[in-house]
């Protein structure tokens, strides 16, 4: 059987899997960004009551494996009365894991804004919330976009693990096709190529574009 015949026969399943992977990617990315922003800001607080929960969250999710977190959320959390459907458990685990890494990027991005900017906002008597939202965050955002590009690739790769709790994503379909056809190179190879295309031809170019747009907006380019 040629590779083209293989694709003709199983292409539909790869497509289905890719769509699920894309869904997992966008949902977990949205979650990760939201969590990163909140936890990153909390970690910068002077108030220990605000800072500590963020530090604990970040250390736990960065200190353990995504797979452990995924299994814990899917298999153990129901014992505490929180039962998540597998699709939800999947993107929640990935989003929370990468959100912890993102929080560090947010923190670093904010700290990279020169001190003079804080002082100038202070000299205009801006309130702390306004200062953060209007002056510091826009500049921090531009600084942290490049590492966020890498983080989103990690996030995309992380979504492959949801196949292990039987979410029918690209990875899952590849495994199924491998199990029924024993054409491992074709099955896994195709999945690898699709992930690669997703990362290199969609995610990375999008982030590059965003970087230029933001740089222009901030008047740097």
């Amino acid at each position, binding site marked *: 059987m040629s590779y083209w015949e293989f694709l003709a026969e199983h292409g539909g399943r790869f497509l289905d899997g890719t769509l699920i992977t894309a869904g997992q990617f966008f949902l977990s990315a949205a979650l990760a960004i939201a969590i990163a922003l909140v936890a990153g800001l909390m970690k910068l607080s002077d108030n220990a009551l605000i800072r500590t929960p963020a530090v604990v969250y970040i250390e736990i999710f960065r200190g353990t494996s995504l797979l452990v977190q995924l299994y814990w959320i899917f298999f153990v959390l129901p014992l505490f009365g929180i039962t998540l459907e597998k699709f939800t458990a999947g993107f929640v685990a990935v989003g929370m894991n990468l959100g912890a890494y993102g929080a560090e990027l947010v923190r670093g991005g904010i700290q990279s804004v*020169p001190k*003079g*900017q804080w*002082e*100038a*906002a*202070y*000299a*205009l*008597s*801006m*309130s*702390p919330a*306004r200062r953060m939202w*209007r*002056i510091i965050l*826009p*500049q921090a955002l*531009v600084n942290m976009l490049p590492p966020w590009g890498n983080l989103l690739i990690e996030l995309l790769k992380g979504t492959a693990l949801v196949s292990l709790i039987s979410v029918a994503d690209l990875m899952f379909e590849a495994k199924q096709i491998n199990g029924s056809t024993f054409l491992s190179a074709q099955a896994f190879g195709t999945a690898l190529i699709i992930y690669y295309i997703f990362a290199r031809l969609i995610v990375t170019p999008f982030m590059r574009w965003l970087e230029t747009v933001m740089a222009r*907006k*901030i*008047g*740097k380019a």
Partner: protein
Amino acid sequence: MEDLSQFPLELDGADRPMVSFRKVTKRYGSLTVLDNLDLDVAEGEMVSIIGPSGSGKTTVLRMLMLERIQGGVIYVDGQPLTHEVRDGALVPASERYLRRAREPIGMCFQHFNLFPHMTALQNCMEGPVQVLGLSRQEARARSEELLDMVGLIDKKDQHPSRLSGGQQQRVAIARALAMRPKVMLLDEVTSALDPEVIGEVTEVIRKLVREHRLTIMMVTHQMGFAADISDRVCFFYGGRIEEQGPPSELFGNPQKDRTRQFLSAVKSAD
């Protein structure tokens, strides 16, 4: 704990100073930068602060705007700045009180600190709109007028990265003025500039002094400029005022050895 009851709750009277430092002490850790400073600046007065680096001259301005003090009280326009009145006594000011109390003070920095993600006009409008609550039209009118005054109305839609250092500093002055401050702090505003553009910034400051009767405190290394436009010059040394007086006297006939040494060292460096 120092006894705060020795300080009045507010200053009144028609001749009260615009800015008043009373026994102000500032320390960084164990290092005392300013020691029991007493300094009054009258309304509309232009005071230049000079001195060697490490003399505490920049700290004088930063305490009015950015930093807490360890002793004494500072008053602005009669009201305590570093402290607030609670139950008839002075207590250290809360962040919220400080922010309001500092509204009548504007500041310009050595490195301009313009917001890079905003145009010149947006930089000037930011404070009036966000802090003073002006409508966008009012803020725009006010900002355009000020940008015109500093000679940069044609650059209003440019981002700071497109402007020269001198232009950026003029925008920064306009931005500070847009808040309608009663006191302006100028912290080495020409020190980071190329020599050929210093003139355009000092020209704007001259205009402020001549036409606006603003109270100005200026830290500077440019002795000629200070001599030219100041009502009074304070020479700082070791965290205190070593000598002060009208520029003609301080530059023309300094009384203290340290003042003479400093002035001759600066002169020979020129």
